[in-house]
């Protein structure tokens, strides 16, 4: 059950998207996110959808895997959708009992749903095709200029990569401890809220203990290998652009121009 969290979960297949430089993917993702917030008109929508489908197709990651990230926010989606639908003032579309759905409400609800869903799927494509290490590597290089104004870019990237690396470990650990306590008759499901919170103690205490132990071990291991932060540190696998990245940049730029033209005509 816990394994369904896709955040930061890499899907290992061999595809053009997987092989692309993480900086290219980051750039494309940023452009994509901007585009879903500033496009206009149905043709713009079609263009974005076509772009997304093309990338998903190229990535060879099963579609079912991408929408898994949506499951976690279904509740928020429904809730926000309903609020938008009924609370937006404007021209009446249909009226059920005391509630009125307005034309503007329907429009803003569908727009909002579209944006959220596309945002999640788009960023899932990014995380599913890029290992956490590549991702932070890309971020670090892309944000390098900010190091000049004393932003601890390397440290932030290192913290991110450690955090991302620890997610699956902690998920697995939780699973293991949960099973061990269930084998001792622990019951995580039944009972009221107080009983439920109490029943979490046998799970949370060992989990925290193990997280601290791992953190401690990792810190020691890093020190033992003379880690001293980012200064003067070289990379084992330096990032560098290939032919496919150049192609990708051209495609992204065409995409930007297209979205802008469609905005003008909408």
């Amino acid at each position, binding site marked *: 059950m816990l394994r369904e969290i896709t955040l930061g979960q890499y899907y290992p297949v061999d595809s053009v998207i997987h092989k692309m430089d993480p900086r290219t993917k980051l750039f494309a993702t940023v452009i994509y996110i901007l585009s879903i917030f500033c496009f206009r008109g149905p043709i713009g929508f079609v263009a974005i959808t076509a772009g997304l489908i093309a990338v998903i197709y190229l990535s060879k990651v099963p579609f079912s*895997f991408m929408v898994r990230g949506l499951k976690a926010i279904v509740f928020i989606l429904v809730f926000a959708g309903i609020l938008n639908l009924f609370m937006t003032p404007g021209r009446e579309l249909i009226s059920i009992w005391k509630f009125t759905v307005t034309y503007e409400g329907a429009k803003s609800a569908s727009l909002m749903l579209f944006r959220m869903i596309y945002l999640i799927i788009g960023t899932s494509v990014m995380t599913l095709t890029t290992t956490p290490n590549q991702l932070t590597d890309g971020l670090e290089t892309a944000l390098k200029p900010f190091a000049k104004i004393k932003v601890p870019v390397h440290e932030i990237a290192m913290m991110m990569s450690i955090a991302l690396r620890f997610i699956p470990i902690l998920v697995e650990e939780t699973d293991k401890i949960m099973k061990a306590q*269930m*084998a001792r*008759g622990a019951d995580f499901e039944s009972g009221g809220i107080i009983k439920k919170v109490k029943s979490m103690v046998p799970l949370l205490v060992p989990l925290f203990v193990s997280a601290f132990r791992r953190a401690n071990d990792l810190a020691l291991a890093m020190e033992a290998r003379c880690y001293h932060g980012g200064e003067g540190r070289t990379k084992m696998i330096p990032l560098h652009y290939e032919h496919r990245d150049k192609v990708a940049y051209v495609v992204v730029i065409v995409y930007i121009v297209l979205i802008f033209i469609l905005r003008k005509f909408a």
Partner: protein
Amino acid sequence: MSLILDNVSYVYSQGNAYEKKALDGINLKIEDGEFIGIIGHTGSGKSTLIQHLNGLLKATDGKIYFDGEDIYDKDYELRDLRMQVGMVFQYPEHQLFDETVFKDVCFGPRNQGLPEKDVQLRGYEALKNVGLNEKYFDVSPFELSGGQKRRAAIAGVIAMKPRVLILDEPTAGLDPRGKDEILDMIAANHQRYGNTVILVSHSMEDVAKYVDRIIVMDDGKIKYDDEPREVFKYYKELEKIGLAAPQVTYLMNDLRENGYPVSTDVTTVDEAKSAILKLFKIQT
């Protein structure tokens, strides 16, 4: 009174790139009071197999019967099953959580809904049983050494008096003496209560001394399932799947190949000793 596995298969992460078939058509019958060893190379599916026996993992295919009842039946209470099939996980010390060792050990019996007096009695008995010194009963489990933690964690399961006790590598990472002590303790308990014990291990040496039956796992399948002496006859095949028979098996086979007509049918050092002495007609 038995545990029956009927053609059980299990696939991890079914339907995505991490898909992994960990069990493949397992058929098994475990009778009451047996002392069984499960042996297999790393990743052969031992841990996966035993987690089916108390319903922590649900087989992707196949059925499991406990006392003749299908445990995957809608009305079957898996929690009751877990009270009767106790499980000590690999590195069980990672599950300790309570303020004191004693309270932690009482967690299982308390979940069983026993009266408080019995809960404490069980806790006390179990801790004595695993040979933990009384002065450690009221300290935090996190202050114990690794071996002591291991004992406390095992006590936490023994205190539930399960009819079937499953231990997943209970001696991994312990020193030889601690290893023997824990295994002796488990064997003594088995003698006393007549419960079923299933012991998972990498090492034939450990297992050969205690169990009446060995199940050898290889790549999610059962390769051999027999008495130790029968299984060790296949010592050459065992080597091919990354295992080894006990050293005495090799010794006796070497002796035989070099013209000493000893019986190769021995599994422990003691048996080997008397077989060799018999050959030289020395009486002990």
